[in-house]
């Protein structure tokens, strides 16, 4: 039997807002659904229709997208909610950061989590091993047209734990550079096509900073890191990966870090942000404000700032994080969909969750308009994407994506990133030598590694 008829019967308009517990609206809607079911006179019985499957309710979705991202996600949900096979989605938006991950972990530990949730891929190692996530059924996903070949290997390899897939990436969001096209042109940094020319060496980047400072009459390269709990780490991780050295965090410690390469990177960071050509004392908002005010030619930020920067009217260019060491590498994270652990999952709802994720991912052209690189590769090939500018100019970042080294305590919004940022900040501010900062980073990582794993 086709699922379309009964689905229409019980499909209800999506409403944002928290859904847990019984709300007045919930009761009203259940009543309506019941009436609809009666009207269908038993034709519903035994039918595995999407929304009526468990007799209840909409697909529960948790995410952390606010502001512009949140509106785009609304748009995508609306798109997949239309039509006879549409979904009825209850979306819960939670505040991004440590608190989101605390709540997600608690709900999964309780076994009564939402049907679908968003997780930064860098966080997977803290969630999958402890059973906080349920695995995906890849055959089911393939049935809905999504499979491994649709993702870059760099990203797909991070969706697994012990050979099982626990996450389906929606996007790749790299740490990149934005620049003022006119200033970069005056500084002679553009290639004939009008894009930022490759740098290729630390010296080239230092020179670029000087040239940009001259061109703007202010600063060259801006970077906001003071009191920030992620920025320094993002920059360090990108540059460190460019040296080709590995950074791994084996359980029980000690961390496996190439000290020489790390010191080389921190030394370069100190040189680049010397406090003269490029200011070394900006916080995140200060760097944004300086760039928006034309007091700097280039700024190192996440691509998610694109909508804000675009609104400014600056002739905006964007490029992957410049390669200055031996190989290209871009620090990245990825919003991915996961199935938080449910003690007693309803197979039909699970099926719906798979179908929902497949459908949403195919909508990621909308998502790309905020600056994110869609993880689902077929979207990148669409003409609509190549027309997006400057998004398409850093689309390759997904190929050389570097994520946090996996362990339970790492990832977006984690203590680990905060602890790595602190010594780096001290180094950039001139309060610590590169060697001292790296030694402290290793010590901090070692401390975290020696703690018992609370999620396994």
């Amino acid at each position, binding site marked *: 039997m086709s699922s379309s008829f009964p689905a229409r019967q019980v499909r209800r308009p999506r409403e944002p807002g928290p859904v847990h517990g019984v709300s007045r609206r919930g009761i009203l809607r259940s009543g309506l659904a019941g009436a609809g079911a009666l009207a269908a006179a038993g034709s519903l019985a035994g039918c595995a229709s999407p929304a009526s499957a468990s007799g209840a309710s909409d697909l529960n979705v948790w995410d952390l997208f606010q502001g512009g991202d949140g509106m785009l996600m609304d748009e995508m949900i609306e798109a997949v909610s239309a039509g006879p096979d549409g979904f009825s989605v209850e979306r819960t938006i939670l505040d991004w950061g*440590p*608190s989101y*991950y*605390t709540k997600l*972990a*608690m709900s*999964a*530990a309780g076994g009564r989590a939402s049907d679908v949730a968003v997780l930064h891929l860098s966080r997977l190692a803290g969630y999958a091993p*402890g059973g*906080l996530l349920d695995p995906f059924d890849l055959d089911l996903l393939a049935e809905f047209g999504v499979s491994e070949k649709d993702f870059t290997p760099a990203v797909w390899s991070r969706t697994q734990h012990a050979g099982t897939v626990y996450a389906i990436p929606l996007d790749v969001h790299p740490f990149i550079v934005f620049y003022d096209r006119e200033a970069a042109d005056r500084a002679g940094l553009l290639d004939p096509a009008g894009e930022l020319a490759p740098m290729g060496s630390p010296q080239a980047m230092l020179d670029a900073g000087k040239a940009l400072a001259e061109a703007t009459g202010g600063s060259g390269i801006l970077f906001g890191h*003071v*009191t920030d*709990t992620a920025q320094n780490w993002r920059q360090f991780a990108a540059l460190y990966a460019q040296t080709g050295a590995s950074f791994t965090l084996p359980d029980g410690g000690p961390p496996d870090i190439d000290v020489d390469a790390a010191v080389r990177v921190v030394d370069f960071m100190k040189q680049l942000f010397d406090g003269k050509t490029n*200011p070394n*004392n*900006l*916080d995140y*908002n*200060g760097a944004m*404000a*300086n760039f928006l005010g034309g007091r700097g030619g280039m700024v190192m930020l996440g691509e998610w700032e694109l909508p804000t920067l675009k609104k400014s009217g600056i002739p905006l260019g964007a490029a992957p994080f410049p390669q200055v060491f031996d190989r290209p590498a871009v620090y990245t994270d990825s919003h991915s969909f996961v199935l938080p652990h449910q003690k007693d999952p309803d197979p039909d709802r699970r099926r719906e969750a798979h179908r929902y994720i497949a459908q949403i991912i195919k909508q990621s052209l909308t998502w790309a308009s905020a600056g994110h690189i869609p993880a689902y590769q077929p979207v990148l090939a669409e003409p609509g994407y190549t027309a997006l500018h400057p998004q398409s100019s850093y689309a390759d970042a997904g190929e050389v994506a570097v994520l946090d080294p996996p362990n339970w*305590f790492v990832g977006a*919004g*984690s*203590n680990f990133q*905060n602890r790595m*940022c*602190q*010594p780096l*900040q*001290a180094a950039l*501010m001139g*309060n*610590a030598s590169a060697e001292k900062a790296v030694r402290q980073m290793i010590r901090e990582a070692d*401390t975290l590694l020696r*703690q*018992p794993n*609370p*999620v*396994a």
Partner: protein
Amino acid sequence: MTTTAPIGADADLPAGAPSPGAGDARPPRREDRHRPGTGLLFVLPFLIVFALFLVWPVVHGLWMSFTDTSLAIRDTTFVGFDNYAEAFGDPDVWSSLGNTAVFTLISCVPLVLVALAMALLVHSGLAGQWVWRLAFFAPYLLPVTVVTLIWTWLYQPDLGLGNQLLTTLGLEPVGWLSDEAVTMWAVAALTVWWTVGFNFLLYLSALQSLPSTYDEAAALDGAGAWRRLWSVTLPQLRRTTVLVAMLQILASLKVFDQIYILTKGGPNGSTRPILEYVYDVGFTGYRLGYASAVSYLFFALVIIVSVAQLRFFRKED
């Protein structure tokens, strides 16, 4: 329950005195005393909430501190004093305790002295009393997020008012939130601005309730304004000072929110108070058992400080 009623109070009543209900003019106190359940009924709602949200968490937290409770996993095992042993050897515990102590020291002194100075100024009869009272107390009414947002911009390295003023005066700009030697002072300055109004009110009301006779007598005897302040007013404010200082030390020991929003404990952990460490370990790191142990150590410390304070002030009294 009957023991709470002073039995001796009955002694002055003649035996077989008429019950208060019998048209007697005496207030019906005796009746209450002899029906023990009544009072309990009225405080029951409070007791339930108190037991549920204070006593139980305190007991449960103590239990958790002896286990490896995780925020994300159901199973827990009893680990005895392992968490406490780990806490004693954890340099982050000691450094964050040290930060808390430094903050308490550098915030309490101005919070008492500035409040006293402001109260004396207002009490001395400045014109436009209500303006001063409002101005001194207004910051206290702001929520912590607003206060911190304002000060984050004041402390901006190159756009902020702080450094603008310094550079206008020909001084070097300061890394308010980035220089390890400065940031705790910046946090203390914010805290003083934000919360001094409360202590100011306590002082002001104490000043207003002082009898003016001593002051007048001293003035007649020829004591000048300073002399009267030192020898008459301040000694009379002793009890208020003790109260303000004790409340302030406890409040400063519990510092968390403004630091968490302003600096996240940075730069380089130099402003991270012990409560932020507990938060980091427990909620960001999921290790509730260990976080409980650390917070119980801190709890013990707070009790020790409070008892010591009490002893100290009582002795001097």
